[in-house]
Structure formats: structure tokens, C-alpha cells
């Protein structure tokens, strides 16, 4: 038995970061009343586009920027379909996932087996040498800190700003928001694009830092987990961190158990994170009243401005 708790925690944070980024974006999308099931597709598009850009420019930073932009562009497709052409959100989201997976495979054809430029760890002025806390908190790349910072920003935005209040109002009752003169469609399109950009960043984190290389279908369900975590967090930003790290923890634990040759078939271990997610979702939604109070009331409903 050779599992160090410190390195376990440090690596679970890395494992959780892509999911946390994508879930933060999806939280904003769902708060505006839109259910975008295409997170997986936008993540993998971010993964490949970010990878291509980083390899060709030699800069991970450019890679992340391009990843965010490509995620946002793909989500714009979803936004046009659902907000202007009033297509069904569930079907459009599923289509977006399939489309993203296919397109990413096509784009990434000649990029298998290449190593991307490495991202430096963020310099905390030697604080990474502190025992225990150092490796856990102060020994990561910039994106890990950015993802937590983003949750903070989203929390402040939703709770304290007028724009955040309007976003919540649109998700709560789009007809009333429209009657008060708010541009429901414009607000939702912007929210969807923010969600796409965050999913793109999450995908690029996988291909540029966590793995780091490009393989087809490398998101492997991370987008779906991000969607589940939004429900798990009952649409509250801080709980996203809890959910993502919990999931990251289970993933890392199962990898370590496998590596240490536990006498359990590998399949059981790999399904563990998903089983945990299902169990947690069941527990969360068992209290019907609380779940429905927190959920944005217009979630997934099509808005049609009938003057």
C-alpha cells in the first residue's frame, strides 16, 4: 500500500479542475434558464483547438485563449438553434455533443502522439516548500487558481451585481422579465457563450496540462459529470468546488487503487465515480421541495416573445 495522502490531494485538484471550469460555465447558462447538454462537445472542441494552437504557437496561453474562443463559437451554434430558431434544448444539446466529438476527431487526426508545450507552475515565492500545505496548495499551474477565482467571480456576480440579478430573473420567469423590458434572448445568448468558453477552457486543461497530449474522445464523459455537478451544487457556486473536488477525489483514488493492484476488477473501479455521482444526485433530488426551490423555474423552457 503506497498511497501518499498529500500527493493524492494535489492530484485530485488537478483532476477536478477541468470539470470545475466546465461546471462553472454551465451554472451561468442554467441560471439564465437554458439547459445546454452540449458541454461534452464544447469541452472536446476546446481540447483539440487549444492543443493545435498551443503546439503551433508554442505558448500554452495562446492555446487556452483559442480553446475558450472555439468553445464559445460552438456554443453560439447552440444559441442560434435554441434562442432564435426555437429548437428543443435537449435535442440541440445532444446534437452539439455528437457534432463536437466528431469534428474534434477530424481536426485532431494528425496531432496524436505530439507533446504540447508544458505549462509552468505558478510561482508562490517559495511557499511550495512548506510541508504538506506547500505541495497541496502552492504547487499548481495558473489555471487551477484561475478556476477557483472564476467561482468567486461568478458568486459575486450572481449575488451582488445588478447584471447577475437580471440573469437570475431571466432564468426564473422569462415572460415577466420580457414584460419588464429585459432582452431575454440577448442575455441568454451571452450566458450560453460564457458557458461555451468555460467548457473550452476545461477541455484545453485536459489536453494541455492534465494528460498532456491529444487522444480522440479524451474528455471521456467529463462534460456529463460537469452537468451533474451543477445539479449536485443545487445551482450554488461554492458547492461546485465541493462537487468537483469530490468527484476528482474518487477518480484519483480509483486510479491509485488500480495502480497498486487491488484485487478488484478494473471495471468496478472505473465505474465508481459515476456510481457516486448517481447516488449523490438521487440524494440531492430526494427532497423535492428544496430541489425545485433552487432550480431556475424557466430551466429548459423555450421563450417565444408573444408581444
Amino acid at each position, binding site marked *: 500500500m503506497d498511497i501518499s495522502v498529500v500527493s493524492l490531494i494535489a492530484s485530485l485538484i488537478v483532476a477536478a479542475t477541468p470539470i470545475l471550469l466546465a461546471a462553472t460555465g454551465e451554472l451561468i447558462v442554467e441560471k439564465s434558464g437554458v439547459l445546454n447538454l452540449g458541454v461534452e462537445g464544447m469541452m472536446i472542441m476546446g481540447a483539440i483547438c487549444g492543443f493545435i494552437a498551443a503546439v503551433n504557437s508554442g505558448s500554452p496561453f495562446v492555446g487556452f485563449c483559442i480553446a475558450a474562443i472555439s468553445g464559445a463559437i460552438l456554443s453560439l451554434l447552440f444559441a442560434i438553434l435554441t434562442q432564435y430558431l426555437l429548437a428543443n434544448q435537449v435535442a440541440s444539446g445532444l446534437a452539439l455533443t455528437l457534432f463536437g466529438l466528431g469534428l474534434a476527431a477530424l481536426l485532431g487526426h494528425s496531432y496524436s502522439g505530439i507533446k504540447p508545450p508544458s505549462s509552468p507552475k505558478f510561482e508562490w515565492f517559495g511557499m511550495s516548500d512548506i510541508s504538506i500545505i506547500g505541495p497541496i496548495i502552492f504547487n499548481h499551474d495558473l489555471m487551477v487558481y484561475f478556476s477557483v477565482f472564476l467561482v468567486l467571480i461568478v458568486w459575486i456576480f450572481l449575488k451582488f451585481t445588478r447584471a447577475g440579478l437580471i440573469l*437570475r430573473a431571466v432564468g*426564473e420567469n422569462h*415572460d415577466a422579465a420580457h414584460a419588464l423590458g429585459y432582452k431575454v434572448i440577448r442575455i441568454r445568448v451571452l450566458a450560453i457563450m460564457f458557458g461555451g468558453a468555460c467548457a473550452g477552457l476545461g477541455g484545453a486543461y485536459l489536453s494541455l496540462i492534465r494528460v498532456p497530449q491529444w487522444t480522440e474522445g479524451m474528455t471521456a464523459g467529463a462534460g456529463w459529470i460537469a452537468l451533474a455537478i451543477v445539479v449536485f451544487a443545487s445551482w450554488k457556486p461554492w458547492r461546485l468546488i465541493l462537487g468537483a473536488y469530490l468527484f476528482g477525489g474518487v477518480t484519483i483514488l480509483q486510479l491509485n487503487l488500480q495502480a497498486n493492484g487491488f484485487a478488484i476488477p478494473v471495471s468496478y473501479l472505473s465505474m465508481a465515480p459515476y456510481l457516486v455521482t448517481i447516488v449523490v444526485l438521487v440524494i440531492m433530488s430526494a427532497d423535492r421541495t428544496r430541489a425545485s*426551490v433552487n432550480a431556475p*423555474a424557466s430551466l429548459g423552457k423555450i421563450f417565444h416573445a408573444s408581444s
Partner: protein
Amino acid sequence: MTLIRLDNLTKAYPGVIANDDISFEVDKGEIHALLGENGAGKSTLVKMIYGLVQPDFGMMRLEGKGFTPTEPRTARLAGIAMVFQHFSLFEALSVTENIALGMENPPSLIILSDKIRKVSSKYGLSLDPKRLVGDLSVGERQRVEIIRCLLQDPKLLIMDEPTSVLTPQEVETLFLTLRRLRDEGTSILYISHKLEEIKVLCERATILRRGKVIGTCVPKNETAKSMAEMMVGSKLKSPKKSKANFGMPVLEVDELTLKSLDPFGTSLKNVSFNLRSGEVMGVAGVAGNGQDELMFALSGETLTDKNSIKLENEFIGQSNPVQRRLLGLLTAPEERLGHAAAPEMTLAENTLLTGFQRQKLGRRGFLNKSGAIAFAEKIVQKFDVRTPSVRNGAKSLSGGNLQKFVIGREILQSPRVFVVNQPTWGVDAAAAAFIRQALLELAEGGAGVLVISQDLDELMEISDSFMVLSEGKVSKPRPAKGITIEEIGLMMGGTEIA
């Protein structure tokens, strides 16, 4: 002195001219009524004033200057405020947040809460800024809307059917507030079809019919009947009630208790009453006091304790809607489209929803289409439903016609007990009179009829006995004869629940 003046406003939608050459003006410090049937064009007209809809032709002048709002924001900045019929509120947000959303450049939420407290005490509209709107009563929700308007010092306050959901006492409070505003110089454009209220409140009234201005009158000099006839354009008959002749109880509800499934709903507490054959019983009460829950419990959509509901000789608390229908308990819910009828399906297909078993519209899992068409045609003919054919979709019918179809579908299945929620909500006067007459005739034929409604005038007109549902409890039923609106109002306020 004129505040706002409308000249030749016209707005057409595909297939219908909603507003046709409308001209009138509202004076400063005047309460001006806008009267008309459903579909007369009142809503379109006020939406043009509020900037939600742009007119095709015509112009508006506000204090002598041209006024062409392209969005609600411009209208609000110009001093127009509006209280909507279906409130534009957000249930999961607090009172303060709701009010902030309706304002241009609101102050910080703490300062705003303070202002809300001040204004609410000044106008006698008590309200706690911190509470979630979902926890408020309907009357309190309307106060939120009104305070939201008042904080912007409007010159013109538009109120769309403000009293349709209030108790008589709440209406009194509202009128005091409105008169006070008028005395301070605010003009009010008051949309309603409650003519008695308009007589006591409004100085002038403009009457619309089919998108045109029919005339302006001084409500004090008119009778409710004369104004109603101007609105409809023909003479009105009121339903006739024959002598009450009650038989044995057909529906006995005993200590019915039911927890609401809706987080903002009201649970039923020990509801008990008996409905006799031949009796029309009215259930009054402001929306959200357990009406939906009572309806669900009686229709079988929510199951209850087996012995709490008895239909003739059977305990049916655990029976599903189909079993209840077979035994003779039929229901018509409030929401026509989506609950009583499937919007996308034809009228013939909609007969299958409740008539499948009782009218034998199918055998061994197969549909009897010709039977369904014949039954739908019978409903259309007997209940004067205006539709090109029974193959038209339910959503293509106007509210009144669809309601006649829904009521007709149940009545023609000769129920032993018929429970109906808001039978004439949003239905024009002629169709409403027809439906009420049909309910009375059904009771005359020996069925028990339970009418849940918020329209007190309607209940006074057709009920034999009367009870009030308030906070999930019912009062003792009492004969409707001789009861006054004031007494009912006190019962609705919850002070006289026996």
C-alpha cells in the same frame, strides 16, 4: 388638462385587427376606465402605451409632446408605470430584488428596502421587503407591483384587471390607495370588466368592442347592465334558477387532509362537506388558498386517505381518475389548454381524454374514431362551440369556445357529481352566461355540482349553498340566499372559519 392623448392608433396582427383607429385621452389626476370584452383590444392598447408593442399607424402625445416608446424602458422614463394582470414577478427572488428589477437605476438593495418600507407605510400597503415573493399571498404580490410603480413617481399608472384576484376587503384598500394617488395628481388607466367597481371608482370610461372605440361614458350615470350591453353589443340574459330541490348527499368529504406537492402551494386541512344531489355548491376564496389541491384531491390526480371521499356509496379516496369517472365523478380543471385539453390535438381526439371509458370510445386498446368524432360533434352542436370542424386543434379555439367544449364534454357524459374550477375565467360575457346556465340545468337534472371560483358575482348568481376555502380550510357551508358580499369578504379574510 390632458395628460396623454391617443390619435388613430391602429395595430394589426395576421388575420386580426387588434386595434382599429383608436382615439381618446386621459386627463391629469383622472381615473379612466378602459372597458371591453376579452379580445376587444384592451391589452394590445396598453402594451402600445407601455412600449411593448409598436402601433402600425397613429400617434400618442404625452403632455402635448409626441410620445413613441419603442421599449418599456423609454415608457418608464417618460413616467408610465404598469401593473400587469398576470404579475410580472419572480417567485424565487425577494420583494426588494423584484422591485429593483422593475426600476431604472435602482439604489443599492439596502437603501431600496428602506424606501419600500417608507412607501408601503405611507400608502397603507404593508409589506416586508425581505420575504420571498413565492411566500406571499396574491394580494401581497399585487402590492409588490404597485409599490414598484410608485417608487418611480409615475404620471400615468396602468392597471390591468387588478381586482380579479383580490378579496373584497383588499379591493377596498386598493381603491383607497388609488384615490389617494389620484388626489396627488397621478392619472390612472384602469382596465376591468367588473362594472360595479368601475361605477364607484372611475370618473370616465372608454368602451372598446372588437378593436374599436364604441364610446365614452360617465360610469356614475350608467347602470352596470347598460355598460355591459355596450361592451357586448347586444342584450344580455341572466341565468334562470329554478326552485331548489335537493336529494341525498352524492359526494361526502370527511376530514380531508392533503399536503401540497407545490413548494409554494397550500395544504388542505380537515376539509369536510356534503354535496347533495340537485345542489350547486360554490367554493369561494382567493387563488392559492388550496383550490388546486382540492381539485386534485377530488379528481383523483392526488390520492388521499380512502375514507375521506365518498361518492354515493363508495369510498374513493384511493381510486384513480379513471375509476372515479366510471363511478360518475367528472371534473373540469382551471387550466383549459394543457390540463383540460391537449392543445395540439383535435377536438375529436380531446373527447378521448375523459370520455374514453364512459362514452365507450374504444375497445381492447383500439380507438373508436368515428365514435369520438360523433361525440365531439354532439358537444359542438349542443354547447354552441364555434369551430370550423371537430378536426381543428384545441388551441385554435378562443378561450370561451374551448371552455364551452370542455364543460360540454363532461356534462354530456351525465355525471353524478361535477366539479369545476373557475368555469368562466377569461371567458367573454355571453359564453359565461351560457356556461352558468348549463351548470344550473345539470343540477336540475339531479347531479351535484361543485363550483370553485374566485368570481363572487358568479357564485352568488348560481350557487344554492356556499362555503369559503381559506388557507386550506373550509368554512361551514351555508345557504347562498341572503348572504352579502361583505360577509363573504370577512369569511375569505379567514376571520370566520368555523
